[in-house]
């Protein structure tokens, strides 16, 4: 390239070198001042218009695994066998957890596991060999005392506590070397009926949760991977040790469902697991996992659809127990006539925390993109993303036009999932007191709900909701169902789940129908004169398209007819159900009591004194033998087993990472500590040198 010929190469080189140095120095000076000015401008603009970080709290940047967790080699192996009996809209489940101590020591095993958020756990037995030992329901502290005493005296003993409505702990002490002890628990549950389909959901793993707040060193035993924090006082109890995916799946689960739909079934599907389905009669099926057992790493769901027209519009099941009738009432209002479409202001909130990394964020982005495309001219919208901090796309909701929608879609696509889950910051931005003016204001919240401070968030939603409606979309393989359903209930909206990318289309379609159709409001239940009834929920939530009214009631007698009424699109709606026309169903008492416990605990959020509520819940739960946050099951085998000179080793049962999650994104990495500045400066200088020598070479060539 440098093809010039000179007679004095030494002088030439000196001049070239001088030119180069001068030029580079000049370029550097220009570059630096230009960059300073430009970046200052960009920073100013970006700081003002584009992003408005919540910036109020800055805690828990990552989901830090601050503790090893006590998953040692001596942890018992755990396997679970679940059998369901489904009749109509109620399911009874029997969950058998087998603790197998494969070590040569005496072991105490602790297993933290999920159950459906509306499960009424009303029975627990401990199986030692051929013997079944029935448990007692006790106040939580008292149950723990019984357990501790039995453990100390070497007796085999089992304890079951509730940590959240959907997180429980079983603890089994004095499992001998090579011994098996099983905890067999049963629960009752009403099923979800929505858009003409029943669904039965069984969660299998408590995904790692984000715990906001500052760490507190707890004096007591540390079994979880997190210490307690000042915002999540029981963090250590809800963070079972999580195995790295390479360590292989643990905790096999087998599932068997005896399904009696009561009406002919059109189809049965299990979207997340392969199943074998045997048809016993038009209305009965037997379902088993095709693989026999699967690792406990995602929710199981079974969906069935009654044949067209055969689905009941009304169902009323009762049980007579202790001189009272307990009943479950379901009424499905007819589909709404397509009314005029209301103008809406929609705020989408997207969780971009580390737990969303992988399959979840792809599902969420797809869902959000679909929702953006569905917005109509005349609507307004905004998008909020949050991880360790929360940011809004626009400072205020913007009109729907191709440019804004395009911009939002591009922004959403560019987001990455990492960091913490400061959900409160996002909720504050979304529920900022604006009411959408004449528009219906809706917040659509896409998250896996992997947080430990649910109660604080619920309080925030309750306080700031105003006229806004909150809809939750549970994303991923193991969403926090307690958060999804309770947030939607307090937000006076509804919830849905997306567990796979191919569900996005259909699930979002159903949600759009709910968002766009008129709501059935002002629902009331009128019990017949003279019938003393106590029903839950006390206030019936507004109904969205495809949803039924479901009420659990306790009554003195079954006479007359109950009337359910409401208003939709300014037109009254009413249904009457004769109380004597009932089907009989076992376990309705548990469902009613479970509903009442939930209502009592909700009342704390509305200002009821906790001490009083606690007394009431303990009394109710003891009478109905229910596990609640204040009551636990404890079972003790009277015969001492462990010799007094043998040590007892405490170990937490490790759990799997939920399917599709990314371990390093969830548990964080050490902060990154380098910039590309030197690389950028070096490559910049090299480019300048090269460019300069090219220019110079050209000039020289002209004199050659």
């Amino acid at each position: 390239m440098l093809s010039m010929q000179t007679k004095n190469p030494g002088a030439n080189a000196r001049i070239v070198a001088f030119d180069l140095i001068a030029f580079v120095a000049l370029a550097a000076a220009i570059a630096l001042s230009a960059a300073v000015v430009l970046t200052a401008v960009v920073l100013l603009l970006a700081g003002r218009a584009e992003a408005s970080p919540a910036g109020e709290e800055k805690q828990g940047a990552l989901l830090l695994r601050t503790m090893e967790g006590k998953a040692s080699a001596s942890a018992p192996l755990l396997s679970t066998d679940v059998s369901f009996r489904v009749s109509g809209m109620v399911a009874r489940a029997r969950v058998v957890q087998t603790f197998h101590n494969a070590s040569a020591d005496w072991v105490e095993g602790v297993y933290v596991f999920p159950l459906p958020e509306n499960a009424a756990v009303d029975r627990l037995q401990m199986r030692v060999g051929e013997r079944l030992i029935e448990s007692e329901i006790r106040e939580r502290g008292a149950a723990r005392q019984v357990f501790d005493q039995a453990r100390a005296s070497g007796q085999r003993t089992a304890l079951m506590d509730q940590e959240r409505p959907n997180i429980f702990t079983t603890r089994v002490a004095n499992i001998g070397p090579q011994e098996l002890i099983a905890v067999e628990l049963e629960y009752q549950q009403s099923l979800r009926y929505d858009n003409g389909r029943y669904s039965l959901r069984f969660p299998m793993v408590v995904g790692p949760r984000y715990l906001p707040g500052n760490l507190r060193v707890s004096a007591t035993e540390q079994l979880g991977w997190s210490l307690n924090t000042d915002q999540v006082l029981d963090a250590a109890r809800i963070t079972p040790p999580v195995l790295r995916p390479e360590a292989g799946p643990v905790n096999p689960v087998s599932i068997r469902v005896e399904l009696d739909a009561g009406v002919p079934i059109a189809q049965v599907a299990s979207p997340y697991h392969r199943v074998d389905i045997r048809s016993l009669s038009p209305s009965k099926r037997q379902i088993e996992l095709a693989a026999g057992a699967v690792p406990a790493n995602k929710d199981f769901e079974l969906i069935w659809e009654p044949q067209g027209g055969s689905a009941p519009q009304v169902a009323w099941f009762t049980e007579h127990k202790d001189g009272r009738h307990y009943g479950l009432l379901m009424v499905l209002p007819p589909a709404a006539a397509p009314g005029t479409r209301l103008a809406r202001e929609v705020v989408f909130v997207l969780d971009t925390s580390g737990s969303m990394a992988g399959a979840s964020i792809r599902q969420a982005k797809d869902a959000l993109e679909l929702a953006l495309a569905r917005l109509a001219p005349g609507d307004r919208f905004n998008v909020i993303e949050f991880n360790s901090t929360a940011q809004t796309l626009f400072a205020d909701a913007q009109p729907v036009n191709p440019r804004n929608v395009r911009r939002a879609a591009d922004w959403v696509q560019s987001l990455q999932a990492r960091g913490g889950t400061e959900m409160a910051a996002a909720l504050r931005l979304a529920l900022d007191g604006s009411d959408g003016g004449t528009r219906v204001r809706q917040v659509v919240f896409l998250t896996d709900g992997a947080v430990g401070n649910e109660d604080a968030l619920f309080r925030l939603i309750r306080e700031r909701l105003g006229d806004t409606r909150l809809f939750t979309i549970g994303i991923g393989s193991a969403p926090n169902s307690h958060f999804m359903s309770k947030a939607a209930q307090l937000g006076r909206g509804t919830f849905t789940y997306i567990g796979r990318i191919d569900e996005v289309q259909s699930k979002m379609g159903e949600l759009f129908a709910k968002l766009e159709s008129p709501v059935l409001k002002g629902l009331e239940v009128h019990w017949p004169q003279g019938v003393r009834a106590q029903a839950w929920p006390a206030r019936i939530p507004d109904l969205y398209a495809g949803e039924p009214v479901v009420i659990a009631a306790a009554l003195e007698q079954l006479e007359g007819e109950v009337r359910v009424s409401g208003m939709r699109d300014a037109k009254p709606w009413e249904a009457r159900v004769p109380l004597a026309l009932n089907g009989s169903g076992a376990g309705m008492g548990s469902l009613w009591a479970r509903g009442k416990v939930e209502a009592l605990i909700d009342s704390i959020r509305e200002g009821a004194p906790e001490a009083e509520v606690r007394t009431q819940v303990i009394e109710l739960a003891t009478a109905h033998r229910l596990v609640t946050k204040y009551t636990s099951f404890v079972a003790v085998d009277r015969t001492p087993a462990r010799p007094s000179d043998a040590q007892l080793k405490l170990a937490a049962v490790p759990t799997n990472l939920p399917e599709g999650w990314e371990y390093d994104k969830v548990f964080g990495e050490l902060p990154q500590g380098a910039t590309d500045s030197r690389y950028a400066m070096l490559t910049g200088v090299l480019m300048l040198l090269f460019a300069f020598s090219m220019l110079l070479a050209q000039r020289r060539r002209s004199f050659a």
Partner: protein
Amino acid sequence: MKPDLDLAWGAECAWPEGRAERPPARPWKYLALALLLTGILQFGHGAWIQAKAWLAQVLIAQAWSRTLNGEQRAKPWPWADTWPVARLIAPRLGTDLYVLAGADGSAIAFGPGHLSGTPVPGESGNSVIGGHRDTHLAFLRHVKQGDELLVERPDRTRVAYEVRDALVLDKRDVWVTKQEGPRRLTLVTCFPFDALRAGGPQRYVVFAFESKNRGGERGTRG
């Protein structure tokens, strides 16, 4: 030849007309100009990272003096989403830095960042601080065992630490954020120090424990 060379810059203007139509000169020129521009931008980008890192510390110093006077979460500039939580001094190396809230990328561009969820520097427990090996925490490569590190807290008291150990670890070694044990600082930066590009998996971690012989907390000096 020398006079000719001196005219080199202006030579193009005097180019004979007939030969100016020769095509090869143009594409080279444009390529060179493009390269020149990219080089300027690229260099400016790198220089700006450095300039920002050190300019910000000046603004943060002012925010820190407001913090010492009782202001909570004093933001160094109005739209900042971080604020100084402590001052970190390495007397032997003459390093004086302000530690910001949060060890995420947006904070540590301006100063070493305190990893949220761990105790604030100076509190009991394990305070974790992250920072860039090529800006604020570049001094860590010169830190030796036994070096003194001082932390100034918002209440003007100072806590003295003594460097015990330094390890090269993997970014997944989050166990260094463990909380059990005595009051200490854990300083995390990238490794190797001379690597050109960011994003490597290795971390250089310095452990400094509260100096027992000095009695820990002391009043302000100097």
